[in-house]
């Protein structure tokens, strides 16, 4: 698919861009270069000057083997849309893998461009469908415009449009953009960062008083981790932009590696508003979402997956929330606070504890240093739990949980009175059933026929 104007037709098989094996091999070169210093040096030591070309040949052979493998990978990978409207990917050199993605269960499509492919104007496409375990397909690499075109076609077909979807360019409207200084400051002010930095200063202070420097050994750990965490997230979330397009919400981010994620409407299984202590003077909040199937696969991207908005004022966060869960007015939902006796079990977060519901969603609030306001649509409720530990039992308290697909959001109505928790659970199971009967978000562009 070197020319993206070429019409994509059902059944026609495509290959990735021919430069893919080169780009896939490139990241191992720096490591090999470093290794060649040692091996080359060792060889020179052992065999004299004649050892140097020997070592180089060895390295080159290794590069050739890796490249050869990547080349075969490229040769063997084919993707196409089949007659039943599914997206198919056949791949694998030694183990053949024929994957069939049911587009009606599409969750998200990501266009990811790591540093090296970006220099070549290439990107890889990650397609996630709902399902446990490894339910995604990764296509590495395509030219950036081709990747975008394929994304459009996949999302369009999933929406129930036909082949023409590819040519319908959905215009984007930028809704929110996170300013770089806000992002940096917010990451530093997070509770975990601040905590570790405080610990570092305590360690420094104590070892100063003590005159010994054993304590200093801890400093790289307590001081280094937060710096790495902040730097990692900063690079990842840099330039975070939320935009709406005809085919869903588009989230763009990244400094070295850029990523653009498309979330079709109705895919969000739960939302969490997170408010660390030191963000409150600024009125900031982070919004995280759970999308079924996205977090269940083990992935290096896991860290910031599920971020809908890294930091923003409440008003902005609510605007964007309205896009992922239309028709839900958070302010109109009255939260019921926990019974007085819960003070004994949760003295610090007692005032925050709350649960409430509207016709469409259940909302819970909890947390002391870091507050969580979590929202789950009744239609996305998987199962309901009531739990009671030994202390809670003495006090006649219990917590109600709503189970949602794996992801960053946990829904917990903490420390209600035991009968109330039980009632909440039954009521939630009932509401979930009612909502599910009405739910029709599988084919959102056309009225549902049979899914």
């Amino acid at each position, binding site marked *: 698919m070197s020319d993206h104007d070429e019409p994509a037709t059902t059944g026609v098989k495509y290959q990735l861009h021919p430069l893919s094996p080169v780009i896939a091999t490139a990241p191992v070169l720096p490591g090999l270069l470093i290794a060649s210093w040692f091996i080359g040096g060792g060889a020179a030591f052992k065999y004299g000057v004649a050892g140097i070309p020997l070592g180089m040949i060895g390295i080159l052979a290794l590069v050739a083997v890796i490249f050869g493998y990547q080349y075969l990978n490229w040769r063997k990978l084919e993707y196409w849309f089949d007659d039943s409207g599914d997206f198919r990917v056949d791949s694998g050199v030694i183990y053949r893998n024929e994957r069939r993605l049911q587009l009606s269960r599409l969750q998200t499509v990501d266009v990811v461009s790591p540093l090296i492919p970006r220099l070549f104007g290439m990107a890889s496409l990650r397609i996630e469908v709902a399902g446990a375990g490894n339910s995604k397909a990764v296509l590495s690499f395509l030219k950036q415009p081709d990747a975008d075109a394929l994304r459009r076609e996949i999302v369009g077909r999933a929406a129930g449009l036909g082949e023409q979807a590819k040519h319908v360019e959905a215009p984007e409207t930028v809704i929110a953009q996170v300013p770089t200084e806000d992002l940096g400051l917010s990451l530093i002010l997070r509770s975990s960062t601040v905590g570790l930095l405080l610990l570092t200063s305590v360690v420094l202070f104590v070892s100063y008083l003590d005159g010994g420097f054993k304590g200093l050994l801890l400093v790289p750990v307590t001081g280094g981790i937060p710096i790495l965490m902040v730097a990692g997230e900063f690079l990842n979330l840099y330039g975070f932009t939320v935009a709406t397009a005809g085919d869903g919400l588009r989230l763009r981010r990244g400094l070295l590696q850029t990523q653009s994620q498309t979330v079709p409407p109705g895919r969000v299984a739960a939302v969490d508003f997170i408010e660390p202590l030191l963000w409150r003077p600024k009125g900031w909040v982070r919004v995280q979402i759970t999308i079924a199937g996205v977090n*269940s696969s083990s992935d290096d991207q896991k860290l910031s997956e599920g971020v809908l908005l890294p930091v923003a004022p409440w008003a902005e966060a609510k605007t964007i929330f309205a896009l992922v869960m239309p028709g839900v007015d958070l302010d109109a939902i009255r939260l019921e606070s926990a019974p007085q006796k819960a003070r004994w079990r949760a003295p610090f977060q007692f005032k925050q504890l709350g649960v409430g519901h509207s016709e469409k969603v259940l909302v819970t609030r909890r947390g002391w240093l870091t507050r969580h306001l979590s929202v789950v649509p009744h239609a996305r409720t998987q*199962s309901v739990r*009531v739990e*009671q*530990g030994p202390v809670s039992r003495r006090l006649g308290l219990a917590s109600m949980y709503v189970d949602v*697909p*794996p992801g960053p959001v946990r829904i917990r109505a903490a420390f209600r009175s035991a009968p109330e928790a039980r009632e909440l659970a039954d009521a939630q*199971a009932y509401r979930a*059933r009612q909502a*599910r009967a009405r739910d029709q978000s599988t084919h959102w562009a056309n009225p549902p026929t049979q899914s």
Partner: protein
Amino acid sequence: MSNRLSTARRLTATFALLVPLAIVIILLLIPGVPRWIPTLVLAIAVLGYLWSLWYLGRRTRSWKYAERDEDLLVLRGIMFKRLVIVPYGRMQLVDLAAGPLDRAFGITSLQLHTAAATTDAVIPGLTPDIAAALRDRLASKGEHRAAGL
């Protein structure tokens, strides 16, 4: 729940007792260790064992389930009580599992999975025929009420 579950669990606890017993023997063999240390370890191990015999019995008896019209209810626990409600429409698969010890005792455990990994609905200690029947019933109820994610 089958009573055999308690027996199986108690047997496991008995195996677990072997570890502190081994420690006691090792402590006795090491010269220079005062005698009261292995004695204390032994006493704690035996007390813990007796308590676990009693507690395991109670805990397995606390395990209950109910098939309601629209969902399955699983109740369990003494110290940490837990109640799980799984709507039939949300079940993705039903697992039957029996380890070697379970098989020796003729019991099977049944586990329900939904799209959420945190759904923790296990019913242990069913006799195989009851478990299989329950599984088939649940599967057919799930089919009738199946819904997307």
